């Protein structure tokens, strides 16, 4: 099997086992490449199972790539690769405008955000300034993965390029907010992690059994809103699933 070199041209379309193809748009974390990945995945989804994309069963975007799950006996890899090249040309420079916006109340610091001070120290500012900076950002859900409904949000400015922690935090509770490497994650469930735990929300990102179990979609716009721990507690009691998080559908 021919493989493109590491420094070869991107995007590249490469087989991933018998049942998959990966369209790699970037080998680094990159906002534009992620927007292209989401746009490309949407274009592929619209044609899944038809024409040249017969045998494609799913298009799953990640941070800088799109994975196509195939029926290996029906998929024509040459035809698929050709069609992807066309869609890539169409999607060049394109992104998808967000169609939904979340506003999520978060209590930063204290017991619900024990790593906030350490993160502020990495940023070289006060904890309060770090929270102001983070809540001023228009975040975007760049990908969903790792766990059911888990959003990777970003991309934060360069100053937020903070490496993961050296050790593992044994447990961040569900709806906890963690940061690292210019990204923010809201954990759908209790999770051990190497990311920095800076705050707590009340939004359940994954609700098994609900008609729509997933709060987030890739491409959603997200703002975090700082609240005190008491206010968060009150919001969680009034709204056990959402913790006061608001979802607007954008025109």
């Amino acid at each position: 099997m021919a493989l493109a070199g590491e420094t070869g041209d991107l995007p590249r379309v490469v087989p991933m086992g018998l049942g998959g193809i990966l369209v790699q748009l970037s080998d680094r974390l990159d906002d534009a490449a992620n927007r292209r990945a989401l746009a490309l995945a949407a274009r592929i989804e619209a044609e899944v199972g038809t024409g040249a994309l017969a045998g494609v069963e799913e298009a799953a975007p990640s941070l800088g790539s799109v994975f196509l799950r195939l029926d290996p006996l029906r998929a024509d890899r040459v035809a698929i690769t050709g069609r992807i090249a066309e869609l890539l040309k169409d999607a060049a420079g394109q992104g998808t405008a967000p169609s939904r916006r979340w506003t999520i109340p978060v209590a930063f610091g204290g017991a619900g955000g024990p790593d906030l001070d350490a993160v502020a120290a990495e940023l070289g500012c006060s904890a309060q300034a770090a929270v102001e900076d983070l809540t001023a950002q228009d975040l975007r859900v760049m990908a969903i993965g790792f766990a059911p409904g888990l959003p990777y949000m970003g991309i934060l400015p360069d100053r937020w390029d903070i490496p993961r922690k050296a050790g593992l935090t044994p447990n961040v509770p569900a709806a906890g907010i963690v940061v690292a490497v210019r990204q923010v994650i809201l954990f759908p469930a209790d999770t051990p992690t190497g990311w920095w735990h800076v705050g707590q929300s009340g939004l359940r990102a994954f609700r098994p059994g609900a008609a729509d179990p997933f709060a987030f979609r890739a491409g959603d716009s997200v703002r975090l809103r700082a609240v005190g721990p008491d206010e968060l507690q009150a919001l969680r009691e009034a709204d056990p699933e959402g913790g006061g998080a608001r979802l607007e559908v954008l025109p």
Partner: protein
Amino acid sequence: MAVKVITPGLSTTVQDLGRPGFYHLGIPLSGGMDRFALRAANMLVGNEEGAAVLEAVFLGPELEFTAPATVAITGGDLPPKLNGAERESWSAFEVRAGDRLSFGFLKAGARAYIAVSGGIDVPVTLGSRSTYTLGALGGHQGRALAAGDELPVGQGGKGGGSVPATLRRMPGNPAELRMLPGLYWHRITGESGKRFFADTWKVAPEADRIGYRFRGGTALDFVPREQPFGAGSNPSNIVDACYPYGSIQVPGGTEPIVLHRDAVSGGGYMMVGCVISADMDLIGQLQPHSPARFVEVTMDQALAARADRQAAIQRVRDHLGRN
């Protein structure tokens, strides 16, 4: 009709052929680890091949039936007993109301599939009855079975017959796991790649529905490169990407992990290749400490193996007259 759980075994879950289509929302495939055995069990009891069954690992459960049904056990050699008397695996047998199914000690393989005519009728979640315990999704209350559970069973059809040993497939010794070198294979040196295939590995104790870890082979040598932004500091790290079923990651370059049905949908380790799906069934039957080798195949060989597997399933259908 229901199946009562008297004792649950080590970790017995409801599984069907899985829940494809939700990688983009972080949901893995789930479903039976040995899908060939799962299909055969359903054929034996007259179910649709993808009906929900019970998957037991290492240690079987004890179950009681509340009404007559046809039952079949396939997969690893976990000897079934009905009211204490031994029964044949890979053969359909009848049970009456009040009968108890239990199991002797595992003799070979790792997982047994228990099919009941009518299928285990738990609710369908995101298109499947399979249990994804990490996500508390599907199956019986999103978890492994516990003593006292009662599982509903659907309306049964007509089953019967048995699958002779010649039509079954179990891992060899060592198990030979065919793989397509993949995406990041070029990141390891040529010598290192040769050793990867030459070495005999052993299944580590960390071997479950999420993935199988292998150890005992030589650590990988990476071609030096500067890590791209966002890819972490270890050469085995990449910017998080989708992890398909069967993909092989090597955290830190030391021990390969083959991701199985309940693996996370993505993450930040590079993948050196993918084990072909026919041999993913074999991994589902490997016990810790069993030896295994990775065997390089081309895309054409992998497609041929896929067709062989379809033919093997068809032979079971033909033998049982289920066409």
